[in-house]
């Protein structure tokens, strides 16, 4: 119990700052995607600070000898950039350049500018799962026992390529692959059940031959880590693994929560001040 309390406290402190970073980045750039970034702040923090086996230095683009992470729904990168910076991939001060000219922190993740932590460009949706499979096959061929993790957006799984990749990974027994769906039931035009229904999602992935885990308390660190740990246990058994994470879009800022309108717009001054009051500083600001 003490352990869980400590985990909740320590990771909670980082995630709180990540949320604050996200809002400050998007506000200062007057551009970006706050909703999904806030929703995934906890899982990204748990992955990078308590779970993935990483070697930030020296940065190795091939990812051999460590776990590989790919953010397929690239638009929520404000949270990922914050986590990467705070995990030591690049200076925290660089977060101030988000979405600005001459920055390594592109509007959607890119490799061209050489930002450590990013292995493939994502943004046009549906492509990251296939690329993750490629990295996983690379690890298999190179006898690297580490895993590949990929986060997919809820709306993103509308894309046909996701289902091509789902078939492929199961067919080829890509079992060093763990996908995580950011299941917030929101996409740009509204609720996923209204725009293009993907329910029942567990049954779909099971039918495609994947090992499926559901994470219902997706903002509770002990639950997140427990599910990730189960995923790793289920990996390496001839089947790819997927975690369906029931997140809350906009988590942490009350007026952004569960509102698809916060997919891709920045807060105005008044909204920013209201939001930032809910996100106290826990680490040094950028």
């Amino acid at each position, binding site marked *: 119990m003490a352990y869980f309390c400590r985990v909740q406290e320590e990771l909670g402190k980082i995630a709180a700052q990540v949320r604050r970073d996200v809002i400050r980045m998007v506000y200062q750039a007057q551009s970006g995607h706050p909703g999904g970034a806030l929703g995934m702040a906890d899982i990204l923090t748990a992955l990078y600070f308590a779970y993935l086996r990483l070697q930030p230095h020296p940065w190795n683009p091939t990812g051999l000898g460590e776990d590989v992470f790919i953010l397929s729904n690239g638009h929520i990168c404000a949270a990922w950039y914050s986590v990467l910076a705070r995990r030591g991939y690049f200076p925290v001060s660089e977060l101030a350049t988000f979405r600005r000219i001459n920055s390594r922190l592109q509007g959607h993740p890119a490799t061209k500018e050489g930002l450590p932590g990013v*292995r*493939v460009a994502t943004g046009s949706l549906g492509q990251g799962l296939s690329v993750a*499979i490629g990295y996983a*096959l*690379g690890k298999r061929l190179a006898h690297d026992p580490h895993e590949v993790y990929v986060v997919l957006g809820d709306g993103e799984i509308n894309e046909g*390529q996701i289902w091509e990749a789902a078939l*492929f990974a199961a067919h080829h027994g890509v079992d060093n692959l763990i996908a995580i769906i950011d299941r917030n039931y929101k996409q740009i035009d509204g609720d996923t059940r209204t725009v293009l229904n993907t329910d029942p999602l567990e049954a779909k992935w099971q039918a495609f031959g994947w090992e499926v885990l559901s994470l219902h308390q997706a903002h509770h660190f002990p639950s997140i880590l427990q599910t990730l740990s189960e995923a790793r246990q289920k990996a390496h058994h001839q089947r790819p693994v997927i975690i369906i994470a029931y997140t809350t879009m906009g988590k942490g800022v009350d007026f952004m929560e569960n509102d698809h309108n916060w997919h891709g717009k920045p807060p105005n001054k008044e909204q920013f001040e209201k939001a930032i009051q809910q996100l106290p500083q826990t680490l040094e600001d950028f």
Partner: protein
Amino acid sequence: MRPKYENLGSKDTRSGFGAALLELGEKDERIVALAADLASSVKMDAFAKRFPHRFFQCGVAEANMIGVAAGLAGSGFIPFAGTFANFATGRVYDQIRQSVCYSGKAVKIAASHAGLTLGEDGATHQMLEDIGLMRGLPGITVISPCDYNQTRLATLAAAYWEGPVYLRFGRPAVPNFTPAEDPSFQIGKIQPLLEGKDGVIFATGHLVWHALQAAYALEEEGLSIAVVNVHTLKPVDVEGIAHYLAQTPIVITAEEHQMWNGLGDIVSWVATQHYPRRVIRVAVQDTFGESGKPDELLEKYGLSTAHIIAAIQRALEKA
């Protein structure tokens, strides 16, 4: 005395790719191959049989194939992703753009059955826009070799060429006339085959042979026409092309591709910068193809030896 290129025995260019892929696989464990239910048509079956653990059958799912190839490249492998030119470009344009080119992943895209000479399958499969699609992408190299031997050499070279490569080849058996080992073939450089003072034909792919036949026929009429094989369509050998533009105002391009965005545009672009020339394009005139035998199609769509000869004569009349 100008060289006389002889047909060493007709072969399909796709088999040149298959032979090279197998050779590469034998000597380098980083070589991997991906197919989309066309492994045998694209001549990847020998590699698949010899190296089953380095071959990935993707099924009829090309978008995923390109993405998986990008990931393998990112891990340090050298992936060749093969399918028909249509499915290797138009169908997966955004995947090549984002996951491959923008991400700097050295995927080698092996595009078979390009052009009209795919034949009987008709226009759905006759890719005539791929050079334009691919050369518009930053960072990719585009190669269209002229025969079996050159396709083999291009494949061997593409494996170790920096960055993504689009390798275009075809279906039918066509004359094989370049040497098996050919130091004059270098990615990024034009390959002059015949020198001549009365005109120049820049040709690529299957039409290089036809350009040679046209030049030989015109030789009998006392004309000396240069033939330049532009196998690399990106990066453009500006200096090489400009050198030939400087020598003669009679300039023809010949390609099994739409008249837009291909070799005709490339040569015209160099001309506008260096030696303003009228450039006559032997190419498909902004239309789709149809079913038929390869030779019938070349004839009907204006890409035969006779059409190249006519283009030269037209240029001479206008000069």
